[in-house]
């Protein structure tokens, strides 16, 4: 550790004293004024910079003449000749390159750049690319799309969740304009909450997580909303068989300020009355969401952004049962340039996830339950562009969490006779992080990024806290607990984590690079879930005196090689050690349990794997193949006899193939195929007759079996309308088929005795026999969407 600090300060002090002038500014898309994230600004003859998430760059160079080239994939280069004698601001707008189709082979120069810019274990996707891949119901879904990439595995059908390198779903931090999105699923996971039209850019960190990010063990999914067209009023929309959407955007003050409003509403419930089942006819099932964003340029040095998301799902089964859930986030950001080299962003963020349900047993007997998690946080991120080879990032954040584990209440006065209001004790906590990291290029071939994060987590008093004397008890009986009430705001427990992070990159040859990374991460709030799939009712809870924070250490090494026939390839291997992983004890009581702590056991986990990726990004035929071999294990005292067992979401093989064929300027077809090992399952190993019924003997091994292999093919066809050069209006028809060959993939498998009511469905079954039942969620689903923009 001491060597680490010495090197750190040596490098920083070395660069601080170099003399230079600075060129800085923003890079924007000329067509709509959107700032461009990750555009390269490079100096002919060596050195360069990449624009940050606000399109800002800063390059400090010694006095002299330079040619600076601004570049972004799919856009024409802009070159500027500069005689640098003082600090300069250069804002650049890039034009879309029109001859994209003809460009079958990319220049060698571009390939070199791409190898260099690719970070280890980081996936970056522009929405334009994502929009070409067919997804369920014809909706563009960024979360579903990233699960096609190596190391990111879908948690299963009917689920927007995903697992990254042996991490559970709650170990992914999903950020939308810096605000945490706690539940990314719409319609119980049929869609993700992100409207493709409102999203500008997406970055997924599977490893090599920069010190700026913290709070989750496995991955960071950083999603940025579009700023809105700063040039003219415009719109994008789509009308589909399941849902429709509309985005409106435009300048508030031309070239200075813009807004965007994007909304979606599904109407699957419109079709429910057609269902044969009466209870389904009376049901409700829909979601809506709204993205809002506006920005204003206060001065050359200051820019304000306000963005928000609001989404809601409503599910009702006849009159008797209603479930609704949703996220709301709000972000207020202030970009400020202290000087040409120092960029600061300060954000005030609000995030709220809540769900509730209502159950009506009779007119005078109805009740509801509400649960929520609410966060407010303040963060500030500073970047000092010391020189073209050296960049220093530092900052911090403080998050105030409020958990409401459940308010049980009668819904009307008559019901008060039967139900009394019960509030399960609320919880409060304070999480904070301070970080510093340094990006340094030793020479054009070798660069490093290293830093660390100091995180703390404190439980705050104010409500009764139930503490188990002995969490290893056979069952958490009420009399094995001590109830303590801490004063409001009193910190009664604090955890501290030191999280070193590092990554390095070495270019062996112009189109070949070797990269490696190490990171340690801590996670203080988590979700307990029983199945591989997530349900909105899975409770979020924090580390406390019983539940220690999770910790992970990951190393990854990757080889990146591009071939001049237009192929990009990569191979990465990783190993991850995890501490304080949670899993439910045998026979845990899961739903609405106020002593949930007592149902969880902690132990260690480890995961390792290899990921391979081949992509062809240019030309008429493009696409990629990704394959992941992975193993994810857990070992927890009290589960599976204390022996190692495969984690619920372990899938040994994962493969996806995506192919896009441009037939003409107007017709584009995409096909995809996914294949993965079945998920682990605990099956009975025998049965026994007890209390006049067959009981399952589950043996002593958890996850002793795998359900059958999952595979599926999808197909999509987009036909664009003829473009009229003088008109902005464009439209296309999208036809898609999900699960083309109608594979009945298992969603759940369970074992039980066949009973009389089963005979309706299975007339040949024998009552009293034992059987395995499989449910399938999606068979073949065709969809049509008409998309437009103006």
């Amino acid at each position, binding site marked *: 550790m001491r060597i680490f600090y010495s090197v750190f300060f040596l490098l920083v002090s070395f660069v601080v004293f170099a003399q230079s002038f600075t060129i800085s500014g923003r890079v924007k898309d000329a067509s709509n004024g959107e700032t461009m994230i990750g555009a390269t600004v490079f100096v002919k003859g060596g050195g360069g910079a990449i624009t940050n998430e606000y399109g800002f760059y800063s390059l400090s160079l010694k006095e002299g003449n330079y040619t600076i080239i601004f570049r972004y994939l799919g856009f024409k280069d802009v070159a500027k000749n500069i005689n640098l004698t003082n600090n300069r601001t250069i804002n650049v707008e890039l034009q879309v390159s029109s001859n994209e189709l003809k460009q079958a082979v990319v220049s060698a120069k571009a390939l070199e750049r791409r190898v260099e810019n690719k970070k280890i274990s980081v996936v970056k996707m522009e929405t334009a690319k994502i929009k070409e891949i067919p997804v369920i119901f014809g909706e563009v879904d960024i979360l579903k799309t990233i699960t096609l990439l190596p190391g990111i595995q879908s948690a299963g059908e009917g689920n927007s969740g995903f697992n990254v390198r042996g991490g559970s779903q709650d170990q992914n931090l999903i950020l939308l304009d810096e605000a945490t999105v706690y539940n990314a699923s719409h319609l119980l996971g049929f869609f993700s909450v992100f409207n493709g039209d409102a999203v500008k850019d997406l970055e997924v960190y599977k490893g090599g997580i920069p010190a700026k990010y913290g709070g989750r063990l496995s991955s960071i999914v950083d999603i940025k909303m579009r700023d809105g067209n700063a040039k003219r009023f415009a719109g994008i929309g789509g009308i589909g068989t399941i849902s429709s959407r509309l985005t409106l955007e435009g300048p508030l003050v031309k070239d200075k300020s813009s807004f965007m409003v994007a909304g979606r509403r599904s109407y699957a419930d419109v079709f429910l009355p057609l269902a044969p089942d009466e209870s389904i006819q009376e049901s409700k099932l829909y979601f809506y969401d709204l993205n809002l964003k506006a920005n204003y340029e206060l001065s050359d040095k200051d820019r304000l952004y306000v963005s928000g998301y609001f989404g809601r799902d409503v599910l009702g089964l006849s009159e008797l049962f209603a*479930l609704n859930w949703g996220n709301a986030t709000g972000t207020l950001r202030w970009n400020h340039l202290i000087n040409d080299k120092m960029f600061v962003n300060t954000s005030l963020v609000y995030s709220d996830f809540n769900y509730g349900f209502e159950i009506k047993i009779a007119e005078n007997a109805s009740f509801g339950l509400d649960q929520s998690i609410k966060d407010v946080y303040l963060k500030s991120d500073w970047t000092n562009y010391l020189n073209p080879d050296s960049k220093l990032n530092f900052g911090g954040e403080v998050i105030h969490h409020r958990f409401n584990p459940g308010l049980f209440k009668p819904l009307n006065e008559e019901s008060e006779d039967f139900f009394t209001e019960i509030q399960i004790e609320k919880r409060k906590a304070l999480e904070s992080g301070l970080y510093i990291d340094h990006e340094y290029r030793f020479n054009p071939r070798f660069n490093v990024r290293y830093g660390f994060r100091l995180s703390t987590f404190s439980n705050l008093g104010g409500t009764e806290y139930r503490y188990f004397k002995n969490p290893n008890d056979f*069952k958490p009986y009420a*009399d094995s607990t001590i109830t303590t009430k801490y004063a409001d705001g009193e910190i009664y427990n604090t955890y501290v984590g030191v999280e070193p992070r590092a990554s390095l990159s070495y270019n062996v040859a112009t189109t070949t690079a070797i990269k490696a990374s190490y990171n340690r991460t801590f996670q203080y709030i988590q979700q307990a879930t029983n*199945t591989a799939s997530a349900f909105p009712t899975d409770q979020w809870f924090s580390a406390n005196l019983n539940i220690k924070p999770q910790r992970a250490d990951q190393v990854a090494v990757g080889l990146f090689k591009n071939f001049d026939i237009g192929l990009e390839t990569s191979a990465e291997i990783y190993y991850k050690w995890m501490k304080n992983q949670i899993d439910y004890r045998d*026979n845990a009581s*899961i739903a609405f349990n106020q002593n949930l702590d007592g149902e969880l056991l902690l132990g260690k986990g480890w995961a390792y794997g290899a990921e391979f990726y081949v992509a062809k990004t240019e030309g008429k035929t493009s696409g990629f193949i990704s394959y992941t071999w992975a193993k994810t294990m857990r070992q927890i005292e009290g589960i599976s006899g204390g022996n190692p067992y495969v984690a619920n979401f372990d899938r040994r093989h994962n493969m996806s193939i995506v192919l896009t064929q441009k037939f003409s300027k107007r017709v584009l077809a995409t096909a995809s195929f996914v294949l993965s090992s079945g998920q682990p399952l605990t099956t009975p190993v025998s049965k*026994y007759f007890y209390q006049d019924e067959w*009981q399952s003997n589950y043996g002593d091994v958890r996850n002793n079996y795998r359900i059958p292999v999952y595979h599926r093919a999808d197909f999509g066809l987009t036909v664009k309308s003829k473009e009229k050069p003088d008109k902005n209006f464009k439209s296309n028809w999208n036809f898609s088929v999900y699960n083309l060959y109608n594979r009945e993939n298992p969603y759940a498998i369970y074992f039980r005795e066949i009973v009389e009511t089963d005979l309706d469905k299975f007339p040949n079954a024998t009552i009293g026999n034992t059987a395995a039942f499989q*449910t*399938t969620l999606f068979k073949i689903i065709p969809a049509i969407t008409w998309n437009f923009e103006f």
Partner: protein
Amino acid sequence: MIKNRILLYLSAATLFFNACEKIVELDIPSEEDRLVVEAQITNVKDLWKVKLSTSQKYFNQNSYSNIKEAAVTITEGNGTITQLTHQDSGWFFSADSMECAIGETYTLRVIYNGKEHIAAEQLANGFPIDIIETYYLPDGNGFIQEGYYVFIKGLENDYKGDSYLWRVYKNDTFQEGFGNLIENDEFGDVSYLNKQIDPINPTKDIDKGIVPRPFPFILEVGDEIRIEQFNLSPMYYQYLIDLSAQQSRSGSPFDPPPANPTNNISNGGLGYFSVAHMVKASVKVKE
């Protein structure tokens, strides 16, 4: 009960789109047969009975296999050993009627196939059923329909850990259909024991929605009702709860992780050897 209903609805919600459910054949792992014990002995004088069988392959659809040959004994706290011999269909009986004493530990020993299995439980104390009454509920209240019902009132031990199971007989026929009627005092009063109810006039607060908690079987005037109340060990109570939760798996996110309920039979045996305190009371349904 309420929780079960919530779970039922939520499971329905999860499976809302389940267009397709089918029975599949899977090549699942299997293990060697294990000993299965089903036995309960009580403070009431009766023959001690133990039922023994073996587990079998999950998809094996033949009737279950009884054990005829095994050495079965029950040892009392004072060291007295009682031998049980095979009578019929896997049932092993003691030669004489026996009764268990409160606070005493009883140990079952089964030697089968060269393997010894031991299980022990202590007999808990129990109070008698003070009152058994029936009443008429004029309107259904969402939980139970209109009709005649039976309820009991009784005391229980001051300490926590009392765990009850009731068996209801109507005209000497055991009433099935609601699984095991079980409740413990972990979170407060045992509701079936109707601590707050005035025994003289049980339905006087019916206007406020307060009625005795009845056993959930609709009765008719003239029915002879008998209630058997068992005070179980907390471990057996939990065993029954977990067994029932495992039994009603439906692939929903609220299913417990698949596992065997914790039992008291050593050496990998399945089933349970229960020692319980039993009291009973009877009533005839009047108009």
